[in-house]
């Protein structure tokens, strides 16, 4: 499947890319919301990892402008304590708090969403 990673933190992008590639997925990664939105419209991913606080365009704005037409699953992420209890953004399928307890376990869970049609859940990983 096609996986899109939008996060301004280099190591977060790289680690998620490595995990996704190891599963045989096609991956794109962007470092800000504006570029992420453009790629989203062209690439039409099945799974999107989206950071909340980013330069140029934040995560919720990207999600709103994307339209989310193709039933893709959106995983929203943040390191900000204000969102540690989760955040409700329409269109988000899973919320993950950074740092991830285990990046591979987190990716697995995200993958499962694509295979099973679940309702929105608010999931936070305790630090």
């Amino acid at each position: 499947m096609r996986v899109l990673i939008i996060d301004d933190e280099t190591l977060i992008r790289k680690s998620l890319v490595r995990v996704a590639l190891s599963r045989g997925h096609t991956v794109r990664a962007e470092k800000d919301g504006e570029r992420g939105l453009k790629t989203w419209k062209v690439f039409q991913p099945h799974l999107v990892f989206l950071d909340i606080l980013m330069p140029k365009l934040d995560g919720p704005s990207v999600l709103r402008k994307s339209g989310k037409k193709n039933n893709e699953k959106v995983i929203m992420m943040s390191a900000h304590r204000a969102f540690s209890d989760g955040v409700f953004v329409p269109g988000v399928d899973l919320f993950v708090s950074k740092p991830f307890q285990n990046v591979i376990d987190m990716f697995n869970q995200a993958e499962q969403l694509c295979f099973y049609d679940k309702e929105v859940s608010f999931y936070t990983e305790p630090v």
Partner: protein
Amino acid sequence: MEPKVQKNLNNQIQATKAYLRFCNNLFKASSLEDFLSLLYKETNRQFKTRSLVFCWSSGHFGPLQYICHSGGLYKKTCHHYKQYSGGKAKQIQVKREEDSQYLMTSLGRPVQNILSIPIRTNQYGKNTSIRIFVEFYIKNHEILLSFYESFLPLITKCVDRLLWKDHLETSIELWTSTFNELNEPLAIFDEKNNLNQANNIFNKIFDNMDHKPSSQPLLHWQKRIFERHSYFVNISNKLGKGPLQKPSSRGRKKEATEKGQPDGEDGEKKNSSYTVYHYTDISESLILRNKMIQNIKLAALGDLGEAIAHQLSNPLAGVLSMAQWILQSSLLNKETKKDMQDIVEGVSRSQEIISQLLDFSRTDSQLNIYDLNEVVRKTLPFVKSMICFSDFHVELYKKPLFVNIQPGLLKQVIFNLLKNACQAVAELNRPPQQIKINTKVEDSQGILHVEDNGKGIRTSDYENVFKPFFTTKNPNKGTGLGLNMSRHIVESFKGNLKAGRSSLGGARFTLSLPLEESRRQKHDISNR
């Protein structure tokens, strides 16, 4: 000349001389006592006078000041009572019992025949009431009255002058004693920077120096801090430095002075500039300012904390994720795998510290119920790095101790006490270095003890340690404000903070807070 005529002439000459002598003495009188003495002697020379009482007040119902002359006995007292009415000189009977009592007490015996003579001064106070009471023996008091009336203009001028002098001397004395007793250094220097006047504390601090003080803005003295202020005072010299000017015949043009500096037509005055140095005590306001700065810093830390935590957490999360990814690779050898595990551990610990720092810096503005034990637990991680070489013993009460506090501030207090304990034991060059912290219940109070085996506190300093700027530490290690602020914080929670001796040999600080009922709503400190 016939002997009779000669005798009369001689008498007249003597009388005139006596009169002139009396006038001259009146002009020279330097005090109201002098004046009354002269009047008494003169009256007695011509008539028999038992006593003279001079009294005045600065208003109709103001206090009466008295000077009594009774055969050389002087008394000066103050008394409130109603004035004798009427503006004319007259014989009076002392009818009012309290007046009679008062005069008897002042003069030492009852008084009977009194002539009351009002004096109307021209300049000293429009509402001033001045009288002379003359107690006399002679049958016809009219002669005595006539005698006084002939001298009235002279007496009036003399009294006016002396009352002003008395008033000025009282004011100067009041000013001088106020100036000297001021609790802040104050000094006046003339235009040549010579000392003109300085109060007691100024002389004490600057050791009676007579030159201008240094330009340092702050002065530290006996644990007080003063801030220096200086300002100029211009004093106009109305008389000028030359001799008095003779009025010109035309009435307008004025002659030059000896020094060749003519006055202008309006009479220009020479000005001299004095400098006043005033050191204001800012010790209290410094404490308040520091408290305010601390509060602002804490608030700012709280506000920025979230943003800073995010800025730190994000890259750390990246490092952790990448490390986790690399760890699962089968290409790693045992040693590299171990290294990667250490990286993961280090990052996790950093994240934990960020979380705890946020907890620590957060200050709630409202009081709420918290468990004292929990506050201690949340503070300990920040102290552990300081006490890694010490024997650190923690013993918390087995049940929660609910107290009504602001947890952020109480954490600051506990942290400060533990920091002091760590610094105290660090001065010990030999093991063991011991610190103990424990909580318990005593008389419905939650008690927290922080003890160490450092050098301890002298008994005489048990209260002094809570005073601002009191410190026994190296200047680089403390400002001496920590314990003062800690006590203020604890007292704001209706608690108490005391210093004493520990069984370990060093100092013991005891914090006590009133316990709240456990069934009242308690707040979970983990989210605070």
